């Protein structure tokens, strides 16, 4: 357990924006209306007839140096030895500082419980040896999940053999979610419209 570091590679050459991952996450984790643990951002680029649409599946990056954990005053946000970043709902006071700290806007406040919530990498499934729901449901196999510390894992081999990208590397969080073939405009926090 301690030697593992779970991570995900999202191969955007395969993603066609069906949003099945977004739906699977909602269904698997009972995510309330109006908030998302995982979603697919879409960016349109160019002028007709030369137009391209890019997809960017999003989720918590389960960073190696997570600002949310660093800033949590109660220890409710924590990182497991296997790299999965979680929120202990019993300890969370709902101060929202973790939400403000996350450079990826991956966190939100649950309307009912008034505590912070986010993608858990489906830790309840991973602990049983099953991949996260978004990975399981992806018909294009664009999402690959595994142990980044295992040189024989597919996720490690993809990271080592492809020019992978991470979101906001300048934020210094060292994300565990890597993208292959992501569009720069989709990666940037540019304004809509």
């Amino acid at each position, binding site marked *: 357990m301690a030697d593992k570091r779970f991570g995900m590679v999202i191969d955007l050459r395969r993603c066609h924006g069906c949003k099945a991952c977004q739906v699977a996450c909602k269904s698997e984790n009972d995510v309330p209306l*109006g908030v*998302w643990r995982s*979603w*697919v*951002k*879409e*960016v*349109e*680029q*160019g*002028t007709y007839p030369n137009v391209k*649409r890019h997809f960017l599946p999003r989720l918590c990056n389960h960073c190696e140096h997570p*600002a949310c954990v*660093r*800033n*949590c*005053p*109660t*220890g*409710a946000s924590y990182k497991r030895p296997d790299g999965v970043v979680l929120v202990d709902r019993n*300890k*969370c*006071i*709902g*101060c*929202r*500082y973790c*939400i*403000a*700290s*996350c*450079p*990826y*806007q991956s966190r*939100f*406040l649950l309307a009912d*419980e*008034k*505590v912070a919530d986010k993608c858990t990498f489906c830790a309840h499934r991973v602990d049983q040896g099953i991949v996260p729901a978004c990975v399981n449901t992806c018909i294009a196999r664009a999402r690959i999940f595994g142990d980044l510390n295992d040189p024989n894992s597919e996720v490690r081999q993809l990271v080592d053999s492809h020019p992978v990208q991470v*979101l*906001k590397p*300048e*934020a210094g969080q060292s994300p565990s979610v890597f993208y292959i073939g992501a569009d720069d*405009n989709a*990666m*940037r*926090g*540019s*304004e*809509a*419209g």
Partner: protein
Amino acid sequence: MNASIVYDVFHVNPFGWVVAVYFTVSAMAAGAFLLAAAVNLLGLKGQQAVGRTAALVAPLAGALAGLLLIAELGRPTRFWRVFTHFNPASPVSWGAFILLAFIIIAVLYARTVLAGKEEGSRGLVAAGAALACLIPVYTGFELVRGRVSPLWNSPLIPVLFFFAAGVVGLSAVVLIGSALTAGVARRLGASGVAAAGDGVAPAAGLGKTIAFFLAGSLVLVVIQLLALAGASTEAVTIVRKVLAGRFAVLFWGGYLAVGTVVPFVIFTGRGAGNRTLQALASLLAVLGVFALRLVDIIGGQSFPLN
């Protein structure tokens, strides 16, 4: 090449206007206590009434800041958890302990002031002053260490918050002092209280000190905006929003014109001797700091991160 987001989910900003009120009120507590401490420790003759008023404003504002902080939590009844776990990397963790210690000391000092025994409490005042200095610093660090936002991640923010504490703390003392009844003012040791409604006369130079803090804040704001204007695309976007976008009225009208220029002119001009004008200028200065905090907090979250 043209690029536009055609689908993204909606993100609710974690911090709103209540946090701006909290930052303003906690700065008020800190600034007021520093004024009380200056009168006590420096032995400023003839300013005892102002110092005592400040000593009473500080715990009230500090307690209000604490209540705001608790009320703003999603789970207010769990606020005690911040005191059972200390995370040295978290400004909120530091802030909880600093604010609690400050409130306790400010209440103790207010009691000695009401008992007329403040002369022998220099150690307490010094400790309170140190904590009062830390309040604007930790609140500033809450932004600096928070979101990756050009408006927040500036080392100038804690310094700016310190100057803001000077503005709102001293202004609150002038404002509340002027509103005190003659009886209360006399009890606090105010001299020359002739009639009901005279209140505590602002100390000579207090208005000019507020003007100094107003000018200092403005210089820091200008430096920050100039620095951002030549930085990243995100920074330029935010500066445009502040100067010519949705925050322009709040910035130019609320902070600069009403909250800085008008009180500065009153405090440094002929209105400096007029108590009503001084009270008005103090009120405007407090509102100006609040307007700037709104711009900082809401403006700092006003763009999608990615």
